[in-house]
Structure formats: C-alpha cells, structure tokens
C-alpha cells in the first residue's frame, strides 16, 4: 500500500471516529455542539507538547491528554448542560475559540500558527487507527442498544417526559458529552501522528461543523448512516482532486460541495439519507430476499 493510501485510510478512520462520537452526543442525546474539534486540539497539543518538553513517551502523555479532555469537558458540561439547548451550542463555539486562543497564547510551547512539527513517526499507525475505530464503533453501537441509549433517545425527544420516568437527564447528558469528548481527543492524537504537524486552523469550528454535516447527511438517528456518510463524504474530494475549476482543484471547493449537499438533503430528506434505518445483517438479508424475489418474478414472466 502506498503512503498516500495508508494516510487516506487513517484520515478516514479519524473522521469516522469523530462523527461516531458526535452521533452519540447529537444523534442520541440531542446535544448540538460545535466544539468537538477543540477536544481534538487538546488531545493533539497536550500529548506532543508535554511529550517534548517533559521528555515523556507520547503514549503516556496521550493518556494524560485524554484525561485532561475528560476533565475539561466535565467542567464545561456541569454549568452549561443545565441551560437551554441553543445556549449549550453557543457555548461550545466559544469554548473551541478559547482553546485555539490558548494555543496562540502559549506560542512558546505550541509554535502558534506556524504549527507544531517534528512529531515522531508511528509505525503501526494504520493498525492502531483501525483497531481504535472498530472499538469505538462497537462501543457506540452497544450504547445505542442499551438502557443508556434508550434514555438518551427519550430525553432527546422530550426532557420533561423523560424526567417523568425518573430519568436523570442532566447527569446522563454529562456522561455522554464527556464520552464523546474523550473519543474526539483520541482522534486528535491520531490526526497529529498522521499529519506529523499540528496547526490551530485544523481544529476550528468549521471542523466541528463538518462533523455535524456528516452526521446530518447520513441521518441523525442512524449509526451506520453516520459511518457511511462520514467515510463517503470524506473520500469524495479525493476523487475530484485532479478536476480543476477556475484553475483550482475541486478539492478546494470541499466546503461548498458539503454545503450544497446538506442543503439538498435537508430539503428533500430531512431525516438524512438513512433516516432511522441501520444497515445490519438482518437488513442485508431482507435486501437479498427482495432481490431474489424480484429475479424470480422476472423469470416467471418469461415463462
């Protein structure tokens, strides 16, 4: 496999990871955040800045960075998850701006907008990314089909009704938000290892918005929808890399393409491509059966 292909697979795994985490937070628990990329920044910067300046191996500082993200997200969640949902979304934007401001402020350590480079090479990054992705999908799938998933869907529908069944809406939301943020920071570490350089502009709110776009495109209520749409939409610009428009590669129009796609989907299929459907074994079996039947019918009509 070429370095380009490996890099692409790692990149797509990272994207899917972050979107799966956003699925848990927004799709299941209805918390709309535009700050998840900030936790990627925390993962990336804390891991490699600490590793370099304290001379600690990065797997250890990586774990520290995830713990810091957990703490940070908890601190953010405790006061804001009591507020109305729209305030929560606004505060997450503010939070992500704050993290980036801190990166620029501590320029001596982070190299500011020049970017923090010379990140060590990780030989089995592809393997780690794929195993990490598989584990995260396994977790969130299990979450959806557990009592926590059901309670999340209930509170997303109607918090007052959820409370009337004894559901502690506030604490459940905190748990899910912290979980999603921890996953994002893990993805941030992988992203740094892939790019070998960390720059603040790869963690802006546009990055967080992209995660939401991918989720809404696939369908907020479908985990497999989120996975497929994240993978597909991330891959899409790669196909049009060599196509140029006004002398610029189509890849540069990525954001515009996404915006157009999301406008189309929201207008014609507001529940997302897959809606509430999950593509699983049973679904595939049904599809196969229907396919077989239609072929049989065709044969009959020839008789």
């Amino acid at each position, binding site marked *: 496999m070429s370095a380009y292909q490996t890099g692409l697979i790692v990149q797509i795994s990272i994207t899917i990871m972050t979107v799966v985490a956003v699925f848990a937070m927004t799709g299941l628990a209805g918390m709309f955040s535009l700050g998840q990329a900030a936790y990627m920044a925390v993962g990336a910067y804390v891991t490699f800045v600490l590793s370099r300046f304290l001379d600690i191996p990065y797997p250890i500082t990586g774990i520290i960075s995830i713990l810091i993200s957990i703490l940070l997200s908890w601190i953010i969640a405790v006061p804001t998850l009591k507020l109305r949902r729209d305030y929560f979304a606004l505060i997450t934007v503010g939070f992500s701006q704050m993290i980036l401001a801190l990166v620029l402020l501590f320029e001596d350590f982070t190299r500011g907008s020049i970017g923090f480079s010379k990140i060590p090479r990780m030989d089995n990054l592809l393997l780690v990314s794929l195993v990490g992705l598989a584990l995260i999908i*396994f*977790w969130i799938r*299990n*979450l959806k089909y*557990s*009592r*926590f*998933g*059901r*309670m999340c*869907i*209930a509170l*997303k*529908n*109607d918090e*007052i*009704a*959820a*409370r*009337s*069944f*004894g*559901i*502690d809406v506030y604490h459940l939301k905190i*748990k899910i938000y912290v*979980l999603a943020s921890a996953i994002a920071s893990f993805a941030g570490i992988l992203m740094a290892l892939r790019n070998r350089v960390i720059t603040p502009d790869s963690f802006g709110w546009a990055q967080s918005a992209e995660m939401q776009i991918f989720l809404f495109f696939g369908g907020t*209520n479908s985990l497999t929808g989120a996975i497929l749409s994240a993978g597909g939409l991330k891959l899409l610009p790669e196909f049009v890399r060599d196509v140029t428009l006004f002398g610029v590669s189509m890849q540069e129009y990525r954001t515009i393409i996404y915006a157009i796609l999301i406008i189309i989907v929201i207008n014609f299929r507001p529940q997302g491509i897959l809606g*509430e459907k999950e593509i699983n074994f049973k679904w595939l079996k049904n599809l196969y059966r229907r396919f077989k039947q239609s072929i049989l019918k065709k044969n009959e009509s020839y008789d």
Partner: protein
Amino acid sequence: MTEQILKTHNLSKAFGGVCAVKDFNMEINAGRIRGIIGPNGAGKTTIFNLLSRIYKEDEGTIEFAGQDVTSKSQIEVARMGLSRTFQNTRLFVGLNVLDNVKVALDHDGKYSLFSALFKLPFRNKQERMIKEKAMSCLELLNLDEFAKLSPSNLSYGYQRRVEIARALANDPKVLMLDEPAAGLNPEETSMLMDFIKDIQAKYPNLAILVIEHRMELIMNLCDHIYVQDSGLTIAEGTPAEIQSNPKVLAAYLGEEE
C-alpha cells in the same frame, strides 16, 4: 385498601396575575379512581404539573406515600411511584413500542455505562430482565402484538394505551391521566374507558387520577370527582352528587349546552 396515598392541602399556583389553581384540596386512596373535571383553562393540567413537580407551588403542601414531597424534584417523585401521562401524546420517536415501555424501567437498570459499552454478560442478563418486565406489562394490557412496531404506525387510541402501559411499567402507586380521551373518536373513547377500568381490576392497589373536560365520560368511571373552574374547586363528591349540583350545572354544564 383504605390507605391514603396522595393528598394536597391548599395547593395554589399563579402565573403572573392569573390564578391557575387556588386552595386545591384533594386526597385519594390506594385502589381508587378519582376524577378532575372542568372547562378549558380551569387549571386541571396545572394541578398535575404541581403534583408531578414540574411546577413549584406558591402555597400549600403535597403529601405522597406518607411524605411531604413539596421539596422533592420531578425525578424524585417519579421514582417514588408517581406516574403520569400528558395531554398530548408523548411517545418517544425512534423507539418501538417495547423500547418505549422499557424507558420507564431504565432509570432503575442495574448495569453501568461501562458494562453497556463493552456489552458485558451482566448487562445482557439485566437487559433480558428489563425486556421480560416490559413485555409482561404489554401482555397484561393485551398490547404485546404491537411490541415491535413504531408508535407512529398505531392508531391514536392505541398510542394512548401504549402511553398508559408505559406509565404503568414501573408499578407506580399513583397513575395520573391527563385527558386520556382527548382527540379520540367516540368508539375509541369508550374503548379507552373500558381499558382504564380493566387497569383498575388488574392493578388493585393503584390509585388513578383522571382529568377530563367532558363530564359524561368519567361519570361511571370515578368514585369521586372534583369540579374545577377558574382555579377554584366549585364542587366535589360522587358522580351523582356532581350531576345534581346546581353550581356545576350553572358554571359548567350550562355553558356546554
């Protein structure tokens, strides 16, 4: 059977200048059905919202299961066994009928988030127990054939029943139904009233409180009725007493004819 389960004393609530509920006194015993009737805006739903602690009262006390619950939260009284439905259907979209019923049991589920994420054997065992309990609730109320359906595929009358089944899943002490027949056609309405009677037979220790604004509907359902008008209790008593009360006829029936 004579155990008093829920009681209010001079319960009052105003919104801005509007008195939604004023000095409301009621009590209900285990195994009984009582009704609250009154025209639109009489304050019936506000009474339920006060009892279930969605609103905080301005004055008065609420005693539930032998405790003063005025300082308790909505979640706490729900967990103590005060269950309710809402005036408009609030089944959870994205969950099938069975999962909707499971939600009522989920706060009490024993497995942790950790065992949920890793799908540990303990989680599977607990999930099976939750499923059994939810299923037996649906079976008891003859709704089990709908378990796998999405609520939106059910008729309005059945959605109401599923909602009531869900409110019963956790074996509450008190069940409060806010206009359960609202939006139903006459046939569905009479079936729903039979359904509620059936519940009383199947849950002998349950106290049921029903809100309705059409008086004739709960006349042969309740033992005792409170008549509300503009926040005040204008009459209370057995259905027969209510029907012949001149105040009720004037203020309530009169305007409907």
